[in-house]
């Protein structure tokens, strides 16, 4: 037999009357902080401060580890050792693939001096994910887990709801968005907490295009720290702009936020370290081999002249429409596997500041990496085709827009 909701509640009230007693409840510090961080007058400045601290700790820790520690190990010890001891040596194709493709100097080819430039599977292929990305995502996941376990996320959701609601999502969309800043894959999966197909479709598409993952941000922080602020800003503006447009043209409902806001909690060190380790291990297991594979594939494609061919064929689009050098073809292929790898490659290409910004934006928005692609396919099924269509449109309009801005500024 089934009860109606009212009958059920009647029964529960009766049960509660006979078994449940609320004693004196004193407002605790936790409740006070809870109120403080959710009321707009205090909560909004607090949220900005939190995000600022998050970003500062992230960038300074990553830089400290990479520049102060990893680079020294990789460039002063690992690379020279391999250059000395790896069978074959310069000129050998296997050596070039695995250790050092060499740097062109006039007509000669000389040995590379850093693991950024050498572009071998065992040098750049290990240095990028372990020397640069690993410290970045470890600190990211530490802080993310901390925010998660304290219980800050739902309050951030409430504060940001006003804005997200204007583009047909709602505050809780901050969860997939922030998870995506670590890795797009769990971010796309977390779109399940949104109510309608329309909201999930929008969210997934926006994540795949405009939210760079932690690995990519880590490399950006290393290669182009001076432009990262502008690039992130351009991406976030894109997130809201195209969210707004999609919300206007797509059919379907956009329900509002309706969520529990749990009380704050003292975080458990054990749970935080476990989550941080699990997420980092996931990167080591799935990220590192993909970067190494990516380096290998890119090298092979270069050797057979395939990238050169594509660069020439696509030159009018790259140079005419997007305003980036034709050599961007290589990184764009790498981006299909790993965005971090693609950014690192861009760093090695000769170009102006403005071309660099355009190229990084292009790499970010033009297509999800393979892991995200698979998750999107699994989560959205046929709607995925629509997502791809939206993506193509955005790449050409938003990528082209940046070129237009440069032209108007007279710098492109």
């Amino acid at each position, binding site marked *: 037999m089934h009860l109606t*909701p009212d009958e059920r509640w009647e029964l529960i009230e009766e049960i509660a009357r006979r078994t449940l007693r609320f004693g004196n409840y004193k407002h605790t510090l936790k409740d006070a902080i809870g109120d403080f961080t959710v009321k707009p007058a205090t909560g909004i400045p607090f949220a900005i401060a939190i995000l600022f601290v998050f970003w500062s700790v992230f960038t300074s820790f990553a830089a400290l580890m990479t520049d102060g520690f990893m680079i020294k190990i990789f460039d002063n010890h690992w690379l020279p050792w391999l250059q000395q001891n790896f069978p074959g040596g310069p000129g050998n194709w296997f050596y070039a693939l695995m250790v050092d493709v060499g740097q062109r100097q006039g007509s000669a080819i000389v040995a590379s001096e850093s693991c950024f430039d050498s572009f071998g599977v065992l040098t750049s292929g290990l240095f990028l994910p372990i020397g640069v990305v690993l410290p970045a995502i470890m600190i990211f996941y530490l802080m993310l887990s901390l925010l998660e376990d304290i219980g800050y996320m739902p309050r951030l*959701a409430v504060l940001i709801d006003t804005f997200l609601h204007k583009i047909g999502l709602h505050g809780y969309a901050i969860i997939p968005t922030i998870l995506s800043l670590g890795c797009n894959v769990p971010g796309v999966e977390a779109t399940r907490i949104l109510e309608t197909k329309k909201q999930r479709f929008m969210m997934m598409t926006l994540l795949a295009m405009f939210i760079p993952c932690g690995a990519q941000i880590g490399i950006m922080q290393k290669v182009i720290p001076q432009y990262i602020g502008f690039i992130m800003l351009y991406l976030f503006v894109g997130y809201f702009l195209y969210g707004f447009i999609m919300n206007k043209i797509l059919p379907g409902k956009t329900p509002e936020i309706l969520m529990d806001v749990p009380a704050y909690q003292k975080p458990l060190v054990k749970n935080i370290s476990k989550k941080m380790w699990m997420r980092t291990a996931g990167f080591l297991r799935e990220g590192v081999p993909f970067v190494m594979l990516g380096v290998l594939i890119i090298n092979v494609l270069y050797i057979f002249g395939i990238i050169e061919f594509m660069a020439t064929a696509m030159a009018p689009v790259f140079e005419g429409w997007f305003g980036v050098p034709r050599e961007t073809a290589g990184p764009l292929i790498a981006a299909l596997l790993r965005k971090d790898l693609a950014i690192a490659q861009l760093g090695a290409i000769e170009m102006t500041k403005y071309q660099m910004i355009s190229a990084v934006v292009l790499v970010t928005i033009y297509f999800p990496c393979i892991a995200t692609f698979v998750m999107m396919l699994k989560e959205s099924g046929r709607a995925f085709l629509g997502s791809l269509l939206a993506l193509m449109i955005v790449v050409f309009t938003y990528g082209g827009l940046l070129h237009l801005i440069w032209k108007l500024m007279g710098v492109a």
Partner: protein
Amino acid sequence: MRISIDRMKYNQEGVFVGINNELRLHLAGMGLRAGKKIKMITREPLKGPVVIQVDHASISLGIGIADKLIVEVDE
């Protein structure tokens, strides 16, 4: 006096009267049932959501939901 939840003042208390739409079942599951005491915690600016307290739970509601929820308040 009967008003919608979004019109409540900070820390004001009221008794939930009801809602009549498809969210009713869901709200019942969250503990929002007729006759229940509700306390307003906060309201975000620019048509943002409200946060209310029901029993020992805090719930955030979009303004479009909150303005359909009716409460009975004093004065």
